[in-house]
């Protein structure tokens, strides 16, 4: 028989109700009213019964004895005994009396009950759930804020358990007793919304995505996807994460805010870029490690992203796994960063002003020896080498000159002003902004500052209902004075301030000295009063008086103008079919102006002729892309097919540079190329870039079934001008699957897991950063020979056998991930990946009998990156307090797995000036660029220890050492210290990177704390050049060995350094690079509406902010954030500043 009688749903179709079959209760009642049984069940199982007390006899007595029985069976018993009918919605049971009494025993059979469970596909036909059977019917549609229908939204009568759910089209229908009720719409990932009916029977509701982000739209490359159905590993940073934070460029926006990224500034200088790597170092070749940047669909190439005003960014998506990145094919193996700029919205014109102004100062000053201490140690050093004291009376020098004080700027200004105007109608929208950013350096600001001017216009126009035209365009002008040579062994104010002796005076005021050599005879630099800057008698080479150095760099600057934009035409002739064509371009103009005066800084650093150099370069790159996509929803089968074609041209560049020598002036200001000088004093050069072209076809199939079973497949075919003739085209496939387990019927309906998605992906990506024409057999010059008397002829010959098989570096990546929403307010994303790069470009060593002159290139080496990533978010509103916390942590392990047959390590490596041994080594089985050197085993305290340190043959291992020298570990046990005693002593790649932001607001006040850190890496502290024995020391060298028992970690001071205490790369100056940094601490106050409305404002907020307020680290240099090309070796990096700012946001 048909069982209307006992309609009981074991769980609801969203998989989020009480699991009645797995909820066990014990009920022992004798002749108790029904409502008491209900109460008991409610008490034990946290469910709720709803019924109309008028139509249901809840006082009817009932007797029941069950022990650990399932709720399901209990309800069936109740149903049979009391002629009741149950329907379950979530944790609610709607109860009514069955009109007809039960007949026979088949009613309670599971077979019969099963039949009436909600089949997932027909939710709507069972949408009517009510214990009030004779009232009004309300219908409507629920969509997200973009108008897409939402499936499975719970629609409930406020204050009751009565409710229903939407179907795949977002439609719902509910029967209510009254037309004045309030409906509550709730859906995982969206804000709960309450709607008063006020007599209406049709209600269309749009829900706003909540912090859980499940319904955030994620940009995935040639399209968007809801986060809830994304199957790849993508990290997003939204405009809201960046608001009001002092972000100078894109890399700063990502640092600490997305998992899986390793970001380190190459310098704290204004305008300095950072190195960004996604999921570790992908290649041994530098250029192949930069992510591909795509701004509004325009590939802007690697690194050329400085032009972008961070305030214009709507969202940044980092495509981390191969399945996400493969849509960008042969340029995606280092990951892809998609940037979307802000667009206008239909509605009133909005005008916003955002600005801040602040002051910056160095966060740390190094502790260096003062003049007395310096002289004392110099004397000791001389004595250790058996030489007479250098200074008769060290005390007489007092404290001496503090060079750091002289170059640091404790009041460096930073300011940013930006006005944006946006708005539009249904037909057209626009967003336009104007920005200015200016920052002075905290070191030598007259030669270290940065200014950027931005203009942006994004607009779109609906030509017809089915046809849209639009454009994005950003322009920037940058003027950058970056003349503080940071992180180099070869001078510059920073490293000079550290190494310059404190005895030398800032300026020479004594007329006798000022009128003596070299001041009297050389073009020395002078201060405003004509006093010469002091020149050291003790420290030479590239170490100079930093103030004098600064004078020689006055005026020099780099500039650039960039225009990046695209135009697009989008048509939707049939619903679901979209055609889109875009043409994008990057136009760049850049150059520099440099004047070198006559100068004399010391006996090594001088200039004997003036020169004025100007360089001008330009590039005009473009790309064209055409895509067609088709979306169709058939029942719950949701397909999207995308097909596309692209053509890309870059490195379409050229440049010239001209230098005028011997201009009759001595300052940048006076320098001009209008002077008539002889042609012999003009030198010029130029170049044209070799074009880089890529031609592509790509396709993507996205499929999901009811938002539950997800699949994405991608294939891209790329041809590149850099591929060898035998491998002109590469294919880059990927596939990913996902399963939203929480939507399954059997998913335990526990409140603590609201959403669970498990996903996996595998794909292949490539890199075509191979250099030009490396597959061709080129002919090179310079193979010259002399015929006759002092003449020579130019010879040309083939360079090396060509490699027409040259192909892309290939990266395959396996990724597993979980996305969860927990306890309603928490969301969590976890990823594990294994990324393998093979065929990394290397020079091929042919046997010498081949007689090749140049290098041949081949796809040789392999590398692997394995990692874990966790992102966690929490949002809750408790009364007037709103809390929003986000955190992420990533673990990474990089290993070189192959370098060619029999090749254990690469030649070369980073070197220190003091040593012939490289400090770093890239070797099989170790992380790229690992530190490689000798191991110290303490300091010899006396001759006895030296004599006792013997090899197997009983002979001393370090016979020439003296007390105070390092005891080197004899790792190969051959009884002597040789290059074979070097080993891997650390690596500069952090094991862990993490970041978090904590955002809380209470009424009109808000507080933000944003922090970021790394751990598990090493830094080589190379601030002091060990080949300059007279350079000043940091105060930790006061702990040097100077007698038995004085130190077992710092060696004695010596100039000759026969034991190579300083010259050998070793673990002596290798330090732990862990740090944690409070990047931003900000307190804001929003002015009350009644006050600002009078001023015509909609919003007004002022804030106080501090950047880099606190850094926790044990590292002894300026700054543990060491990026750039010499990753991990600190040769006096320009430190990050600590700033204090006041900011203002106004909305009109």
């Amino acid at each position, binding site marked *: 028989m048909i069982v209307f009688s006992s309609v009981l749903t074991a769980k609801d179709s969203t998989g989020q109700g009480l699991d009645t079959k797995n909820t066990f209760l014990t009920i022992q009642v004798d002749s108790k009213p029904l409502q008491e049984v209900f109460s008991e069940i409610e008490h034990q199982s946290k469910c709720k019964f709803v019924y109309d007390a008028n139509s249901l006899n809840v006082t009817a007595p009932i007797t029941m004895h069950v022990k650990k029985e399932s709720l399901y069976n209990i309800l069936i018993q109740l149903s049979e005994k009391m002629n009741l009918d149950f329907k379950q919605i979530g944790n609610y049971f709607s109860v009514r009396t069955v009109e007809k009494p039960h007949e026979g025993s088949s009613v309670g059979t599971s077979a019969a009950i099963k039949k009436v469970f909600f089949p997932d596909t027909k939710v709507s036909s069972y949408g009517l759930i009510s214990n009030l059977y004779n009232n009004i019917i309300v219908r409507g549609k629920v969509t997200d804020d973009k108008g897409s229908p939402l499936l499975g939204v719970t629609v409930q009568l406020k204050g009751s358990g009565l409710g229903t759910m939407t179907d795949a089209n977002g439609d719902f229908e509910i029967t209510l007793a009254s037309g004045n009720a309030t409906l509550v719409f709730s859906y995982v990932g969206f804000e709960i919304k309450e709607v008063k009916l006020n007599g209406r029977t049709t209600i269309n509701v749009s829900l706003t995505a909540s912090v859980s982000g499940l319904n955030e739209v994620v940009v995935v490359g040639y399209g968007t996807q809801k986060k809830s159905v994304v199957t790849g590993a993508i990290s997003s940073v939204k405009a809201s994460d960046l608001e009001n934070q002092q972000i100078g460029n894109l890399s700063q926006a990502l640092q600490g805010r997305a998992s899986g990224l390793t970001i380190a500034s190459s310098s704290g200088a204004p305008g300095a870029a950072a190195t960004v790597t996604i999921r570790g170092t992908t290649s041994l070749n530098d250029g192949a490690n930069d992510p591909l940047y795509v701004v509004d669909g325009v590939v802007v190439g690697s690194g050329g992203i400085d032009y972008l005003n961070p305030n214009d960014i709507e969202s940044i998506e980092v495509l981390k796994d191969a399945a996400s990145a493969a849509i960008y094919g042969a340029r995606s193996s280092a990951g892809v960063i998609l940037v979307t700029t802000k667009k206008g919205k239909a509605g009133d014109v909005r005008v916003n002003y955002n600005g801040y102004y602040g002051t910056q100062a160095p966060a740390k000053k190094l502790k260096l020896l003062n003049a007395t201490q310096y002289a004392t140690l110099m004397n000791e050093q001389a004595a250790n080498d058996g030489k007479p004291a250098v200074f008769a009376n060290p005390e007489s020098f007092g404290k001496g000159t503090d060079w750091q004080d002289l170059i640091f700027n404790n009041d460096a200004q930073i300011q940013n002003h930006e006005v944006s105007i946006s708005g539009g109608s249904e037909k057209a929208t626009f967003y336009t902004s104007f920005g200015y950013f200016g920052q002075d350096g905290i070191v030598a600001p007259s030669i270290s500052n940065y200014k950027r001017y931005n203009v942006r216009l994004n607009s779109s126009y609906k030509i017809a209902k089915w046809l849209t035209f639009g454009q994005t365009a950003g322009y920037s002008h940058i003027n950058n004075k970056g003349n503080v040579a940071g992180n180099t062994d070869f001078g510059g104010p920073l490293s000079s301030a550290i190494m310059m002796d404190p005895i030398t005076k800032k300026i020479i005021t004594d007329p006798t000295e000022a009128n003596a050599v070299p001041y009297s005879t050389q073009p020395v630099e002078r201060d405003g009063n004509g006093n010469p800057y002091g020149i050291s008698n003790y420290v030479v080479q590239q170490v100079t008086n930093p103030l004098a150095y600064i004078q020689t760099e006055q005026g020099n600057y780099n500039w650039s103008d960039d225009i990046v934009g695209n135009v697009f035409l989008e048509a939707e002739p049939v619903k679901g079919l979209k055609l889109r064509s875009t043409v994008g371009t990057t136009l760049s103009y850049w150059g520099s102006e440099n004047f070198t005066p006559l100068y004399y800084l010391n006996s090594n650093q001088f200039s004997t002729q003036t020169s004025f150099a100007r360089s001008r370069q330009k590039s005009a790159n473009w790309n064209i892309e055409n895509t067609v996509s088709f979306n169709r929803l058939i029942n719950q089968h949701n397909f999207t097919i995308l097909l596309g074609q692209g053509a890309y041209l870059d490195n379409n560049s050229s440049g010239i540079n001209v230098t005028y020598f011997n201009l009759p002036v001595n300052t940048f200001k006076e320098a001009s190329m209008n002077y008539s000088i002889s042609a012999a004093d003009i030198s010029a050069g130029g170049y*044209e870039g070799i074009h880089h072209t890529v031609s592509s076809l790509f396709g993507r199939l996205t499929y999901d079934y009811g938002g539950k079973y997800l699949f994405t497949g991608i294939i891209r075919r790329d041809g590149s001008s850099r591929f060898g003739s035998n491998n002109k085209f590469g294919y880059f496939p990927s596939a990913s699957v996902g399963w939203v387990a929480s939507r399954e019927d059997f998913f335990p309906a526990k409140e603590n897991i609201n959403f669970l998605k498990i996903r996996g992906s595998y794909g292949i990506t490539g890199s075509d950063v191979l250099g030009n024409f490396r597959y061709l057999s080129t002919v090179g010059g310079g*193979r010259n020979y002399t015929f006759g*008397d002092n003449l020579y*002829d130019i*010879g040309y010959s083939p360079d090396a056998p*060509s490699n027409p098989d040259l192909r892309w570096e290939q990266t395959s990546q396996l990724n597993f991930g979980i996305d969860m929403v927990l306890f309603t307010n928490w969301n969590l994303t976890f990823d594990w990946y294994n990324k393998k790069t093979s065929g990394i470009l290397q020079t091929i060593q042919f046997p*010498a*009998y081949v007689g090749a*002159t140049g290098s041949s290139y081949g796809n040789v080496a392999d590398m692997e990156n394995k990692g874990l990533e966790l992102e966690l978010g929490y949002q809750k509103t408790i009364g007037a307090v709103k809390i929003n916390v986000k955190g992420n942590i990533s673990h990474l392990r990089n290993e070189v797995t192959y370098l060619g047959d029999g090749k254990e390590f690469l030649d070369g490596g980073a070197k220190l000036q003091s040593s012939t041994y490289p400090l770093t080594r890239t070797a099989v089985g170790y992380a790229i660029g690992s530190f490689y050197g000798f191991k110290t085993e303490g300091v010899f305290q006396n001759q006895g220890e030296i004599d006792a340190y013997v090899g197997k043959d009983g002979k001393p291992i370090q016979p020439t050492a003296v007390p105070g020298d390092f005891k080197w570990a004899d790792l190969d046990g051959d009884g002597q210290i040789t290059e074979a005693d070097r080993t891997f002593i650390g690596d500069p790649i952090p094991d862990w990177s993490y970041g978090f932001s904590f955002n809380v607001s209470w009424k009109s006040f808000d507080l933000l704390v944003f922090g970021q850190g790394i751990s598990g890496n090493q830094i080589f502290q190379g601030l002091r050049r060990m080949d300059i024995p007279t350079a000043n020391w940091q105060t930790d060298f006061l702990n040097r060995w100077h007698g038995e028992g004085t130190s077992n970690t710092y060696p004695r001071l010596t100039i000759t350094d026969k034991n190579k205490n300083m010259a050998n790369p070793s673990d002596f100056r290798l330090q732990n690079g862990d740090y944690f940094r409070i990047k931003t601490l900000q307190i804001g106050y929003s002015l009350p509406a009644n006050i600002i409305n009078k001023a015509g404002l909609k919003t007004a907020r002022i804030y106080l902010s501090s950047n880099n307020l606190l850094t926790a680290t044990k590292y002894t240099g300026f700054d543990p954030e060491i990026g750039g090309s010499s990753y991990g070796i600190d040769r006096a990096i320009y430190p990050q500043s600590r700033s204090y700012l006041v900011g203002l946001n106004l909305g009109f």
Partner: protein
Amino acid sequence: MIAACSKSFLDVDLKATQVEDNYYKNPDQAFAGLVAAYDPLGWEGGISSGYSNFPCLEAASDDCFGGGGSASDVPYLNTMDSYNIDAANGPQLDFWQKNFTGISRVNTVLSVFEKDIPGLDDAVKKRYIAEAKFLRAHYYFDLVRLFANVPLFTEPLPKEEIYNVTQASPEEVYAQIEKDLKDVIAEPNLPDKVPAATEGGRVTKGAAQALLGKVYLYEKKWNDAAAQFADVNGAPGGTSKYGYHLLNNFSDIFRVDNKFNSESIIEITHTSIAASGWGNVSNMEGMIASQMVGPRSYNGPIYYSGWGGCPITPSLFNAIHNDPRYATTVADIDSLVNLHLASYKPGYQNTGHFAKKFAPQQSFKNTNAGPAPPNYPQNYIEMRLADTYLMEAEALVQGGGDLIRAAALLNAVRARVGLDPEEATLENIYNERRLELATEGHRWYDLIRTGRAAAILGPLGFTTGKNELLPIPLPEFTNTRMVQNPGY
């Protein structure tokens, strides 16, 4: 956009990058190819390796030590001097790389010359071919003498064959050298001699005959050798058909202002005008040997400072001290120091006596742009008439030939420096070679060629049956079918 999809979109403009397929299309490019084939002749090292040149061979002989700053300072010299040479350590990669690079370039241009080059005169092309073949013979003669067992290439090596190459027998290599040189000598378009000022250093027929004679000598084909040398030498003391005659003044042979003199037969050229810096040896046009043999940290007259390589052994000093050629051969720095005229820093194995013939002498100062070293302008005269006189004399004695002519040749060499005539015995000829050609890079080859190495070098550490040859360089064994020489 259609273009964008097609393959031509991916074939980008070369922007002046020269591609082999498009090169060698006109006479200038053909000549540039030939110049590149000559280029390795002047190398004093390899591309990827260090500095080494004929002084290495002197260090291996009993005439010079290794020297330098310390026992490990100039490994190319010191490993040869001490015979402490193995596959990884020694100058072998330099010699190997230099000569095989030359062979590769020769084979490239010879394959180019098989095709038509528009505008290139046939006679000029034939001369080029002859020059290239001479160069190939020269490069192989060095290889076969130093290594004996080397791969033999007479055509460009196809890429797919690179790792399948095996070594040829020394006989096969010698046969190819003979064939090449006979072709050269038979070529009517190859000049007998060249104008010194513009073409000095280019291949001549005289050079080819002299080299072939020397090759025969090494093969112990005494009569064939003597026949070739007879043409080169002409009447002893007179002027040969190629214009060669002995200079009157011995020291004039080595003067920088007397390049391509009438005694010079094969001259390896250098120049000071390239303004080279230190770097890859293959890119330097000056003479590095000069820097190598100069006294260290020297301050004083006559010489520049150098690296202190190849100090003269007491053995050579004693042999030559009373010879008229002493003053031209030995730089007696110690005497200058003792006279308080100069100071220097004695290096490893210092004897106070240095090789003077190629020393960095102030009188040959580089007046052009660029630093003095490595831009010393001295040429290296690899074969000169006194050498071919003595070789012919030796061939005549060994082959039972005209002993009167043999004595005339020997005594012409002696008479030029004022020495009395001697009988043309092998011992006298060998002794004359040592003194006449001291420090010019021949002694070590001679000792091995004549079987005297074991007796003379044995006490110095020379291992018979091993040290006659250099080891095949270690990197050559990676993935290849090379076989190491005996004893290494």
